[in-house]
């Protein structure tokens, strides 16, 4: 009886091109909208996970390996698997509904999300979120 599909919840996308990728809910639309009359949410996820960094790597290699590619998507609730993890990265100002309207705005929002994900990855926190789900 507790609502768990809220902002900052880490979820796993189950269907579509990004199936198996981890994402974080930025904004949830429980009641749906006119265009999408079902519960859905705006998620920002990891399209390409950062690679494993070892101690032997040079600084240039570490920088190259720690790159994250992000995606933004509106996903139906039934195409998500919620997890017990959360990721509190402030994406509300960057990832908005009108960022998804045009291609170049989406690309700009993805770039900003990528930057925020990378800086969170470099701190070493939320390690589960940035590790690939093996299946």
């Amino acid at each position, binding site marked *: 009886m*507790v*609502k*768990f599909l809220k902002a900052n919840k880490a979820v796993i996308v189950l269907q579509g091109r990004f199936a198996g990728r981890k994402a974080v809910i930025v904004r949830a639309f429980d009641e749906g909208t006119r265009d999408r009359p079902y*519960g859905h949410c705006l998620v920002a996820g990891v399209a390409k996970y950062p690679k494993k960094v070892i101690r032997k790597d040079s600084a240039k290699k570490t920088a190259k390996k720690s790159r994250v590619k992000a995606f933004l998507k509106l996903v139906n609730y039934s195409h998500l698997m919620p997890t017990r993890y959360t990721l509190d990265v402030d994406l509300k100002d960057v990832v908005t509904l009108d960022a998804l309207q045009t291609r170049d705005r989406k690309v700009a929002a993805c770039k900003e999300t990528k930057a925020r994900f990378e800086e969170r990855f470099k701190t070493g926190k939320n390690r589960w979120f940035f590790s690939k789900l093996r299946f």
Partner: protein
Amino acid sequence: MAPTKKAKKSTESINNRLALVMKSGKYTLGYKTVLRSLRNSKGKLIIISNNCPPLRKSEIEYYAMLSKVGVHHFNGNNVDLGTACGKYFRVSCLSIIDPGDSDIIKSIPGDQ
């Protein structure tokens, strides 16, 4: 002799309570609607039959853990659970949204 008698009595009481929920309360039957009721936090108690596939069972239990809802593992398979609901089809999982006059929510999750 005494323990078996107690087990039989509690299964009967679950069936009685379920029948009362079917008559007076709100419920949904089936996996898709159970997950939907958990997602929009309407479900109050989830009942799963004993021959529910283990992956589906753990998925429902995980959702219930996230939403802090009790899960009861019914002592019977989906055929029995369907009969207990008064339906002529199999029911593998069901979600009680509004218990009506029944006290199933208060009494059952204690003895999962």
